[in-house]
């Protein structure tokens, strides 16, 4: 419990300190320092959980599933903080930002990490909602940080669409509470996930189905599922790059986590009744997943802005994960958990290189980004390798997880492998037709290298490569324990 307290308190303390500190140089370092501390304390937490099993059960509940995402969140938070320090320094130097706004940026960055960690560690489904709405509030002013008309528009869209979307999830939570109150008389206990999961079979299926649909649509808006995705490319493309990296790598995962938690309750409730198909929750997720996957793969082709390109790629991968969790079953769930990790790592690494690429070219328009390898090999190769990894090339981890997902699909829904393979090929073509001229070719005049710290990007890509070659046994066991928790069956 102490480890958990530290994990949650450190970002709060960091947020308050960074809100007060006005020196831009120090605050970059402090932001990094706080993020490292968060990561260390989350490792401590993970060590305890892996050794002694899940704990909590009152307002907080930690098991192998959410502690995995907590570690991933703090890790990406830390590496993005390494990247963000010189990046934001550069933005100050070219006067795109003022010092006050940098202060806002750093404080909101930690506030955002806090809401993510709260959403993951809370046991109360109501607090989960509050934390996810809090994540929107913490990032909305970051999306409009540059105060250009485009960024204001993106932030407004993000605010209104996510706010309205997630309101549906609150309505779903209220209906869930209605079903729970019948079974669990104590008011304070009736929204606690661990209590609900123990008695999910008694929940009224008719109420749970409607509650689940509202929750899926609500949190699905945050996952970026088509057709609720309109805010996502705008918010990712107009905000500062470190924010695109954490939005894509973390926020979407946490929203998907919320859906999976609710699905576990709905599955158990429907299993006990006879009026509904017990797979209904999974089928809905599969439907949303396939649609998101295919539509996003098609949209990749017509993008002009480099960050929009990769945000559509995020929608595509979130669709794939939603689909996999929808299939259920140990193999698909294991694959989806692995995919969550490799996608987060790869996508945040890509956004980091994309940030540098657009600093080099002075624009995010892909027509003007040319000859990156010649201008600055670290950025060019980073973008090329990152894109290879995200497109699912062996030997990277994305290949492994996609292979597992395809195998799982082949086992349970053979004919669905056709649209999946088609979508993967489409996405590959969509990414590379834009990528090829950007990285190869001659260096345009007036284009010069910028200061780049490629350490975080290299760590991420190295980890993805490692996960593709061999998953360390402790991690495989960890995923397996989480799989057992979600599906009731272990894979290994």
């Amino acid at each position: 419990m102490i480890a958990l307290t530290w994990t949650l308190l450190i970002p709060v303390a960091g947020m308050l300190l960074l809100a007060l500190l006005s020196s831009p140089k120090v605050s970059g370092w402090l932001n990094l320092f706080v993020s490292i501390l968060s990561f260390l304390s989350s490792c401590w937490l993970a060590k305890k959980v892996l050794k002694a099993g899940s704990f909590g059960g009152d307002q907080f509940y930690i098991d192998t599933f959410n502690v995995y995402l907590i570690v991933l969140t703090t890790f990406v938070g830390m590496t993005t903080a390494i990247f963000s320090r010189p990046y934001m320094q550069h933005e100050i130097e070219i006067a795109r930002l003022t010092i006050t706004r940098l202060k806002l940026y750093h404080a909101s960055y930690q506030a955002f990490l806090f809401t993510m960690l709260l959403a993951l560690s809370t046991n109360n489904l109501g607090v989960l909602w509050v934390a996810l709405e809090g994540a929107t509030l913490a990032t909305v002013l970051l999306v409009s940080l540059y105060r250009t008309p485009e960024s204001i528009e993106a932030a407004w869209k993000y605010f209104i669409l996510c706010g309205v979307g997630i309101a549906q999830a609150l309505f779903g939570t209220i209906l869930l509470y209605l079903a729970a109150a019948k079974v669990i008389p104590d008011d304070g206990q009736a929204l606690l996930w661990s209590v609900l999961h123990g008695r999910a079979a008694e929940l009224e299926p008719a109420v749970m189905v409607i509650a689940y649909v509202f929750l899926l649509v609500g949190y699905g808006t945050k996952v970026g599922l088509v057709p609720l995705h309109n805010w996502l490319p705008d918010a990712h493309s107009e905000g500062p790059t470190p924010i695109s990296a954490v939005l894509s790598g973390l926020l979407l995962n946490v929203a998907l986590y919320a859906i999976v938690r609710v699905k576990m309750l709905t599955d158990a409730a429907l299993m006990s009744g006879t009026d509904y198909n017990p797979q209904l929750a999974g089928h809905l997720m599969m439907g949303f997943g396939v649609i998101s996957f295919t539509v996003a793969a098609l949209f990749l082709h017509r993008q002009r802005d480099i960050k929009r390109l990769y945000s559509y790629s995020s929608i595509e991968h979130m669709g794939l994960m939603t689909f996999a969790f929808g299939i259920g079953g140990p193999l698909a769930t294991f694959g989806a958990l692995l995919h969550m990790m490799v996608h987060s790592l790869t996508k945040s690494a890509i956004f980091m290189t994309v940030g540098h690429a657009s600093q080099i070219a002075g624009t995010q328009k892909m027509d003007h980004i040319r000859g990156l390898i010649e201008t600055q090999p670290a950025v060019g190769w980073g973008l090329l390798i990152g894109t290879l990894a995200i497109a699912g090339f062996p030997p990277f981890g994305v290949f492994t997880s996609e292979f597992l997902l395809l195998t799982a699909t082949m086992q349970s829904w053979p004919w669905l492998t056709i649209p999946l393979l088609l979508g993967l090929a489409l996405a590959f073509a969509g990414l590379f037709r834009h990528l090829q001229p950007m990285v190869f070719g001659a260096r345009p005049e007036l284009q010069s290298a910028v200061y780049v710290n490629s350490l975080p990007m290299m760590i991420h890509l190295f980890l993805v490569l490692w996960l593709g070659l061999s998953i360390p046994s402790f991690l495989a066991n960890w995923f397996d324990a989480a799989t057992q928790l979600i599906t009731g069956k272990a894979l290994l």
Partner: protein
Amino acid sequence: MNSYTDLPLIEQAILTLSALVLLSSFALLAQSRVIATIKMFAWQGALLSVATVLVASDTGEHHLYFSAAMTLVLKVIFIPWLLIYQSRRLGILRDFDAVIRPGITLLIASALVIFCYSVVEPIQQYAASITRDAIALSLAVVMLSMLMLITRRKAITQVVAFMALENGLFFAAITTTQGMPMVVELGVAFDVLVATVIFGVFFFHIRDSIESLDVDQLNRLSENTK
């Protein structure tokens, strides 16, 4: 199935207030003057907090008195005051935000109410007699606020719609489940408060960037033009 007159007087009052809350949603939808929209929103909040007090005394859930007080302070006094203050500073208090095709909008709204009743129909048998209509009514308030959000063109009226949507959710929590656990209600209220402040900041950003508060002009980001 109880009919309306069989219910105790206090439950009749709650149902009547629920109907009035829905009516206020229709009024919000049809209202085109900015100042009148904000005032109607305050009235909706007032109706809600009275309904909350009645539910509290009917069910004996004492924490609902606190929720009622919170609604009164936040949604009847603070948010309307802030919105009026800001629109005065922005000079848009007396502006009109024309409702697009009011007749059709209201017809769609009525259809939405019927739709909401049919959506929650399977749940109704599991709810206590008083909440049967309230679930559908509160869902209708949510849907009507969403309709208002898409038919409005000014940032300030969109914010009113957003807050009215939150009213619908609060109303659902009060009537169907006698409120949420306190920690959740406090959290939601905190989110609403922060959202209000951020919206306030946004009005000025929007005006500074496009010299208007018509969100129609926020149209640079689309798939075709970029």
